[in-house]
C-alpha cells in the first residue's frame, strides 16, 4: 500500500472501502450518483444546495452520504469539496493558494476606444496622433494612447518631418504575436473585410483601407528616428536607467 502514496488523493480510497457496507442503493448505483453529483457541483456557478441535488439525482439517494463520500475523495487532492451550510462547492486546496495568487494580474479587455485606436495605428502606421484623430473623427484622450503603449502593442516609431515634428506611432512584434499575425501585411484588406462581412459591401468608391508597410521596422522617408532626447522629453527615458 505504500506505493500508492504518490497518488495522494486516492490513497484515501483504500481506507474507505468499508463504505461499501453503507446501506442504500447498490454500490454501482452509488458510484454513479457520485459522478452525477460531482458533475453538477463542478458545473454550477454557485454552491449547489442539497435540495437542488436531491431534485436532480435519482429518488431515494442519501445526498449527505454521497457528498460526504465525494468530500473524502477530494480530501487530499488539489481541489476540495467544501460544504457551505447546506450547499456544496469545489475550491482549490487552501495550501495551494500561493499558486493561484502568485501574479493576480487582471486580464482586461481593451475598451472600444482603445481597440479602435489600435486598429487605426495598425492599418495606418506610421501615423501621428493628429492623423488618428482625423481618421476616427474624435479627439483622442491621452489615457487611451498611454494605455496602448502600456500593452506593449504600440510603440513610438519616430518623428514626422513636418512642422511640429509630431511623433509617429506603429505596432510592435508583440502586437503581431498577440493577434496571431505573421506580418503586418496579413491584416485583411478592404476586399477581405467586405468578404468577411465586417465592412458593408456598399462603401463609397473613394473609400480605401491602407495596406500596412511590409517592413514596419524601417522608417519611411518622412520619418526621423527618435533620439534619446526625444525619449526623455516624452518622459519615456529617465537618464541612466535601463528601461524595459
Amino acid at each position, binding site marked *: 500500500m505504500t506505493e500508492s502514496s504518490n497518488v495522494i488523493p486516492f490513497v484515501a480510497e483504500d481506507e474507505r472501502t468499508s463504505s461499501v457496507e453503507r446501506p442504500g442503493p447498490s454500490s454501482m448505483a452509488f458510484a454513479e450518483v457520485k459522478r452525477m453529483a460531482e*458533475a453538477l457541483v*463542478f*458545473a*454550477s*456557478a*454557485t454552491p449547489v444546495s442539497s435540495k437542488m441535488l436531491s431534485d436532480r439525482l435519482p429518488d431515494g439517494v442519501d445526498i449527505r452520504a454521497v457528498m460526504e463520500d465525494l468530500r473524502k475523495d477530494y480530501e487530499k487532492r488539489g481541489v476540495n469539496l467544501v460544504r457551505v451550510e447546506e450547499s456544496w*462547492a*469545489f*475550491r*482549490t486546496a487552501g495550501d495551494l493558494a500561493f499558486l*493561484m*495568487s*502568485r*501574479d*493576480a*494580474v*487582471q*486580464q*482586461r*479587455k*481593451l475598451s*472600444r476606444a482603445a*481597440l*479602435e485606436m*489600435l*486598429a*487605426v495605428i*495598425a*492599418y495606418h502606421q506610421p501615423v501621428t496622433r493628429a492623423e488618428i484623430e482625423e*481618421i*476616427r*473623427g474624435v479627439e483622442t484622450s491621452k489615457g487611451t494612447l498611454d*494605455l496602448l503603449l502600456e*500593452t*506593449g*502593442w504600440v510603440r513610438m516609431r519616430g518623428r514626422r518631418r513636418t512642422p511640429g515634428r509630431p511623433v509617429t506611432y506603429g505596432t510592435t512584434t*508583440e502586437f503581431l504575436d*498577440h*493577434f*496571431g*499575425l505573421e506580418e503586418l501585411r496579413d*491584416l*485583411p484588406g478592404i476586399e477581405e*473585410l467586405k468578404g*468577411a462581412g*465586417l*465592412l*458593408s459591401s456598399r*462603401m*463609397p468608391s473613394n*473609400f480605401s*483601407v491602407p495596406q500596412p508597410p511590409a517592413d514596419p521596422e524601417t522608417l519611411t522617408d518622412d520619418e526621423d528616428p527618435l533620439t534619446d532626447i526625444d525619449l526623455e522629453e516624452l518622459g519615456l527615458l529617465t537618464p541612466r536607467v535601463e528601461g524595459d
Partner: protein
Amino acid sequence: MAEQGQAAGKAGKPIPMDKLWAEESSEHGVSEPVLAVDVEGFEGPLDLLLHLARNQKVDLARISVLALAEQYLQFIERVRQMRLELAADYLVMAAWLAYLKSRLLIPKQRADGEPSGEEMAALLQFRLKRLEAIRDAAARLVNRNRLGRDVFARGMPEHVVVEKKSTYTATLYDLLTAYASQRQRRAITNVQIAKRGVWSLKQARDVLTRLVGELPDWTALDRFLVQYLTRPEERATAIASTFAASLELVREGTLEIRQQEPFAPIYMRRGTKRPETAETTS
C-alpha cells in the same frame, strides 16, 4: 434569430403547385404575385444537384451524370416557363450542365483542348462527393458532445491567470470589427451628408399605380407629385422618375397621358386596363 425550424427539413413537404398559386393570389389580392423558386432550403445549385442525385438512390460514384444534368435542366426550364426568378448561380450551373450534356452526347473529339465530357462528369461527381462528405462531417461535428450544451466547464472559475504577461486581451476579430465599423461609420456619415433623396423608378411606378386607380379624369402630373412630395429638393428626381414610369405604364396600357404643348402640364388618367392585370399574357 429564434428557433429555426430545423426539424422541418430542407425542402419541406411537397406542396401542389396550383394550391400555392391560389393561396398567393387570394392573400395578396391586387398585387402581382411575385413567385420565386424556393431555393432558400438549398445552399446553391450544387446542393440542389446533390439533392437530385440522392433521389437517384444510388451511390454517388455510380450516378448517371447525364440523367442528373437532364433533371436539373428540366427543372430550370420549368421554372423559366413559369417566369419565376432564379438566382444567377443556378443559371450558371444550368449553362455548364447543358455544355456537359452536349460533351457527353457527342463522340469524343481528339485534342480539342477542352476537357472531355467524361472528365467534366467526373469533376462534377468529385464536387458532389466532396460536398456530401463535408455535409456528413458537419452533421457528425454538430452532434458531438458540445461545450455549454452537453459538457460543461467549471461553473465557478477561481482567479487564475492564464497568460503570464499580457494584461490586456483582444482578438483579431475584435480589432477588425472595431476598425471596420469606425471607418464605415465615418465614411457613411460623409456620404449621407452629400446624398439627396432620389426617387427610384420602382418607387415612382408604385406611386403612379396607386394614383391612377383613383383618377378617372385627366389630371396634371404635377398635382400628383405635390401631393406626395414633402420636400422641394426631391422634386426634380420625382418628376423624372415618375415621367419615366408613366411612359412604361402607358406602354402597358394602364395609363394614358396628354400634353397640349411643350412644357405644358402633363395630364394623365387611368388607362383601359386595370393595373392589377398588368400580368398580361401576350
